[in-house]
């Protein structure tokens, strides 16, 4: 038998979690602006889903195109349970509902994973795609359970009050979600620290070698897959609590693609990556989405650039700087960075404005004036065109010239004798 645990979890390792809890507690009092709690609730749900997705992609090396299925199924059952609770057929306080969702997600993952995890790579990706399509289609066909295209709705306030709280306001729901975000994140972190969590990394890195140290790669993947399904189910139930409705759109391919985009932009190689990705993606979607109908194009371009030039994602970009930091050479980077910042920004702003302008003229050409970055101007005039083209070209030219300097500085800042990077 494995040797006994030597000590319980020490206080110092809990400190980051306590800080996170504190931050979560004060957030709704800092961001009181209209709609911010709504957006934060959504971010919270996306965080749980993206982190569970990263158990597959980042930690287990499994590319899934159907992860939303487990969230959706967990959510659907959660809504049904909510309705049963409303009819007082069973007694269940609302804060425990995510557990139900989690178990449903786990259940389905156990069934589907039993055959889908046999292979990784393309085969796994294709099975997940097929399963995703099948279950989304069932969603429309089996109206008794899924309610067809309209979905199934419930009422969260009909559950027995928890310590007098009936979860009527957004804020009350926020705390429920925050609680589960914290719990799930903590548990998912612990999972990475278990033998099977470690072996998931090993199987991702080198499945063959993992077999030669005694682990069946299939079983390792299977366990990770089930765990990911569990947390996706929790996210689904949180969704059910927040939105009180589940539809086919929660588990179709589009939903699965979204979680892939969010997770990857944040960075799949790092535990914190999906959190960053979930926050950023939701903001892109809701805040940038209010400003431009091209948000999806920008997301796509950022995504492609990430895959090509920053495969470790945004978190990876930060993590890269740990090395010069440890070497005490981070200062060497400040100057070239600040130098490239200005032309870089000019380039991005110019390119975005040009894109928007073209889009406006092509598809909203009926309105003469448009507003970009709080400035209103006439699209029929040559001036904005000239300005944006110059911005783009000049910004690009200088960024390119300065990129050499940055590269050089980076090389110097990270150079260590005898270590290949």
């Amino acid at each position, binding site marked *: 038998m*494995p040797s006994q*645990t030597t000590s319980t979890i020490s206080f110092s390792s809990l400190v980051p979690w306590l800080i996170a809890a504190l931050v979560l507690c004060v957030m709704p009092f800092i961001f009181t602006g209209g709609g911010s709690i709504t957006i934060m609730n959504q971010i919270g749900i996306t965080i749980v889903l993206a982190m569970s997705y990263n158990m597959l992609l980042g930690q287990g090396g499994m590319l899934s195109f159907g992860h939303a299925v487990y969230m959706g199924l967990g959510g659907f059952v959660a809504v049904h349970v909510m309705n049963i609770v409303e009819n007082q057929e069973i007694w269940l306080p609302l804060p425990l509902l995510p557990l139900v969702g989690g178990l449903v997600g786990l259940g389905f993952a156990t069934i589907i994973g039993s055959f889908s995890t046999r292979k990784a790579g393309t085969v796994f990706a294709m099975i997940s795609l097929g399963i995703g399509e099948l279950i989304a289609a069932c969603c429309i066909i089996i109206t008794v359970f899924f309610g067809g295209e309209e979905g199934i709705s419930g009422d969260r306030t009909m559950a027995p009050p928890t310590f007098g709280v009936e979860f009527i306001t957004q804020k009350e729901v926020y705390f429920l979600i925050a609680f589960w975000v914290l719990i799930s994140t903590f548990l998912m972190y612990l999972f990475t620290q278990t*033998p*099977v969590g470690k072996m998931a990394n*090993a199987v991702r*890195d080198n499945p*063959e*070698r993992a077999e030669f140290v*005694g682990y069946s790669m299939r079983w390792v993947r299977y366990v990770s897959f089930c765990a990911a399904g569990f947390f996706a189910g929790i996210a689904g139930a949180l969704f059910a609590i927040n939105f009180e409705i589940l539809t086919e759109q929660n588990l179709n391919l589009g939903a699965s693609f979204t979680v892939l985009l969010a997770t990857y932009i944040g960075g799949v190689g790092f535990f914190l990556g999906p959190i960053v990705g979930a926050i950023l993606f939701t903001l892109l979607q809701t805040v940038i989405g209010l400003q431009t109908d091209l948000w999806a194009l920008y997301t796509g371009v950022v995504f492609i650039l990430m895959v090509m030039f920053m495969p470790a994602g945004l978190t990876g970009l930060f993590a890269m700087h740990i090395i010069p930091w440890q070497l005490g050479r981070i200062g060497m980077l400040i100057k070239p960075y600040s130098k490239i910042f200005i032309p870089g920004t000019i380039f991005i702003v110019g390119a975005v404005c040009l894109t928007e302008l073209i889009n406006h003229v092509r598809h909203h050409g009926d309105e003469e004036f448009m507003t970009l970055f709080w400035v209103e101007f006439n699209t029929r005039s040559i001036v904005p065109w000239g300005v944006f083209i110059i911005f783009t070209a000049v910004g690009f030219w200088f960024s390119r010239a300065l990129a050499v300097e940055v590269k050089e500085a980076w090389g110097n800042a990270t150079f260590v004798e005898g270590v290949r990077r």
Partner: protein
Amino acid sequence: MVAEALKLDNVTKSFSGTEIIRGLNLGINENERHAVIGPNGAGKSTAYNLITGRYEVTSGKIFLKGQDITNLQPYEVKRKGLSRSFQITNIFPKMSVFENVRCSLLWAMDYKYSFWHLVGKQKALNESAEKIIEDLNLKERRDTLAGVLSYAEQRALEIGITIAGGSEVILLDEPTAGMSVSETEYIVGLIRKVTEGKTLVVVEHDMGVVFDLADRISVLVYGEIIATGTPIEVKENKAVQEAYLGAALEEEH
């Protein structure tokens, strides 16, 4: 009769009709250091792959300490007590040296697919890992990603991963290939140290290493063992000399 640590009984292997291994018979005694030598393409790596379940045998049987392990999956073979290293470095590149070793210890220390133990809190596990890293002389590289180690260090880690499994029978595949003289010395010393009290099978080209390390030697040519014996016996074997000379002559053409 005492069961041999590893026994190959008339094993054959064909790839799309071509027989690569032709009736391989090999017996390895317990606690001996056994070297397998032979010219390139003789089927040494294939033999390893057959033993460890990477390939399926076409016919024949393989026994580990008397148990039939023919055509088991690699992880099953490992669980029965046989570990191997690879000719081409085969480590977990995106994990630290310490994690590499610790992962290799997990099954041996009976953690299986546990998701309720925290590896950081397992005293015995971590101490064993530290001990192996110390043995490997990789203490300073403990937290470096395995993928960025130097070649010799990666080879050392390869051996570390192999022996961390705690198996009694260890198969090493050209542990010193591509190394300088000093690096070779380091690796050989390492092998000697970490395989103390275990059964070792090693495929090696460097005859210096072979004669230094091995108690017995088998010579594999064209998928068959043509001789087995102590280093001196093998050296003087006519067939061996012919095979090696022949191969050397052929290479010159």
